[in-house]
């Protein structure tokens, strides 16, 4: 192990060491990092051994700018915005990887966290090296945050110390928090693959309040109640966050005679309510956290659409439109779209919603 002072000459030494697959410790604006060539499988193996953590736990990598990032990840609009707003800086942006780094750097699901350090020494090293380096913190898993080289050495075993090739000493760093990791992969437009929703008939009404939206839920129940018990009823709800999908379902539930409080199923994925004076059951789904419609099957959707007494309300229905379409003959599917209206001036009352519906 060699320890040298951080200066302009050290850039070259660090680049040489990285090129030889060595494990190099250096400072950033957050903590000391353990850097290896992120495209070199042997070097990454060495890093995994030092960090003493199971294979499959990903490492973030450092690049110099957004152009360099795009060689390794696909950036969606959310990611681009974050690069623009926060980078360079202590933020790691997770995107879908292009699988051009060494095994073990990307997460098991193929995502990769990228960071552009706001620290000249590191960006000089990466620029001269021309390849991304790992920017994982220089402590072994579960050990204290490394703000000086002694923090690392005092908490490393002899075996670990043997793995360290080069340490670049920048003294004690200010005690800043490690970088914040932001995952942008959930914002990928899965919706686009679902194709367009075509309704047989279309009705439209303006809601002026949450109560109004609940009442529309109630009215739609009254309109379709005659089908209940003969065929399963699906209310497929499409609308932005805060549009009132849960409010609609509250009204629907109340009309069915359900007195329990209907709350957002975002976390629980599906909530079940039994109507007290009938055989009808309400299943309230939220597809927001589902990655695709096979997950609807895992939640028991197939069994539900076999049940004539079932009333199914699905928030973020556009995310699972394919499985809903599949059952449009077996079930009565009412597609409900809740939108924020825009007036000529572009300004609308913040409580107003345009609610349209029709049969699928």
């Amino acid at each position, binding site marked *: 192990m060699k320890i040298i002072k951080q200066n302009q000459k050290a850039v070259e030494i660090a680049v040489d060491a990285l090129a030889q697959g060595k494990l190099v410790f250096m400072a950033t604006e957050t903590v000391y990092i353990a850097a290896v060539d992120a495209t070199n499988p042997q070097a990454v193996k060495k890093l995994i051994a030092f960090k003493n953590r199971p294979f499959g736990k990903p490492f973030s990598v450092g690049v110099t700018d957004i152009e360099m990032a795009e060689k390794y990840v696909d950036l969606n609009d959310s990611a681009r*915005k974050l690069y623009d707003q926060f980078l360079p800086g202590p933020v790691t942006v997770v995107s879908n990887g292009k699988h051009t780094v060494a095994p073990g750097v990307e997460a098991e699901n193929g995502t990769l966290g990228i960071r552009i350090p706001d620290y000249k020494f590191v960006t000089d090293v990466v620029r001269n090296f021309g390849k991304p380096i790992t920017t994982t913190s220089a402590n072994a898993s579960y050990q204290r945050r490394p703000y000086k080289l002694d923090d690392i050495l005092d908490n490393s075993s002899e075996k670990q110390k043997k793995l360290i090739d080069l340490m670049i000493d920048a003294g004690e760093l200010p005690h800043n928090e490690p970088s914040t*990791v*932001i995952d942008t992969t959930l914002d990928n437009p899965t919706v686009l693959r679902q194709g367009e929703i075509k309704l047989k008939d279309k009705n439209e009404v303006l809601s002026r309040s949450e109560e109004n939206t609940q009442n529309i839920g109630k009215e739609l129940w009254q309109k379709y109640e005659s089908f209940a018990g003969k065929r399963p009823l699906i209310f497929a709800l499409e609308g932005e966050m805060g549009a009132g999908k849960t*409010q609609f379902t509250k009204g629907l539930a109340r009309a069915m005679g359900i007195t329990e*409080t209907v709350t957002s199923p975002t976390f629980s994925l599906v909530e079940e309510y039994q109507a007290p004076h009938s055989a009808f059951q309400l299943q309230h789904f939220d597809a927001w956290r589902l*990655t695709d419609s096979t*997950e609807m099957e*895992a939640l028991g959707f197939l069994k539900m659409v076999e049940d004539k007494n079932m009333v199914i309300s699905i928030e973020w229905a556009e995310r699972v439109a394919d499985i809903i379409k599949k059952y449009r003959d077996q079930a009565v599917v009412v597609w409900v779209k809740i939108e924020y209206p825009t007036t000529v001036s572009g300004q609308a009352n913040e409580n107003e919603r345009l609610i349209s519906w029709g049969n699928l």
Partner: protein
Amino acid sequence: MKILSIDTSCDETSAAVTDGTKILSNIIWSQASLHSKFGGVMPSLAQRMHEERIDFVVDKAMLNAKTQMINLDAIAVTIGPGLSIALGVGVNKAKELAKKYNKKLIAVNHLEGHVLSPLANDKLQMINAKFPALGLVLSGKNTQLIQVDKIGKYKILAETQDDALGEALDKAARMLGLGYPGGAIFEKMAKFGNPKKYKLPVPMVGQESRMMFSYSGLKTAMLRLVKSEEPLDKQKIYDLAACFQDVAFKHIERVLRFAIVNCKLKIGNLLVGGGVAANIEIRKRLRKLGKEFNIKVHFPYSRKLYGDNAGMIGIAASFKYQRGEFVDPEEIDRNPRARLNI
């Protein structure tokens, strides 16, 4: 009294061994801890099914506690509330183990676990003198204010009508382009912001007597505000996060204050649990409120006890064991909509 507890109520698979209220091991397998630096990664439902990792988690909990099945007095499991298919995995495992090793079986409400999580490693005698108390559960799924007459007897005083506090924070984070779930990131961003920069409505202000929490109106107001401020830059994101967090927490404070002022019982203690209770700002505010009314505010001693975990289930189970509240392995069933009015 050693108990092995299992919790598979939602995304996390967890098993713990407790001895009374002492946590001997508390293993939590979540996508978040597996990729701890990548806390925002959304596990797919298949990975949330718990089946493939339940055995590993149980074995590890036993190993870390240096305990063998023969030394256990009982097995406890969360029966609800939670995601039905997820709960089923834990309940089946607990049932199987109870039958195989001929152990007593204890069914625990997940929310009772959160309420009692601050009692971990505490001295029971000290605690028992401290009731009636108030319990506050702030998590991604639940926002509940609970009257704890004594351990084992609860009454829900207020709960959310739509989104839970953690869920509201997650969704607001998403509006700011911070990914989902982003509650923890949100807290970091809010630290750098000015909570007075923008005006957002405190939910149900003046209607505290209705004793409910609601975040749908605030969520909508936030969405409008974010849209009107676009394009966002770093400072705007900090300020918007600070404002939203401030107002979201004020709502909790106001309802809690109303409950304390109007409570006919003499309340000396507040037990706070759930993932959002790990937020430093809310802790500060709750402590301050407690001080004003001479109420001691208790939080779990370890970060692991905040989010979903089996350790807290073990604590609740230890009291049930003392009361002799066991269930027949043939009759135990999950209850995805279990309530805490006992």
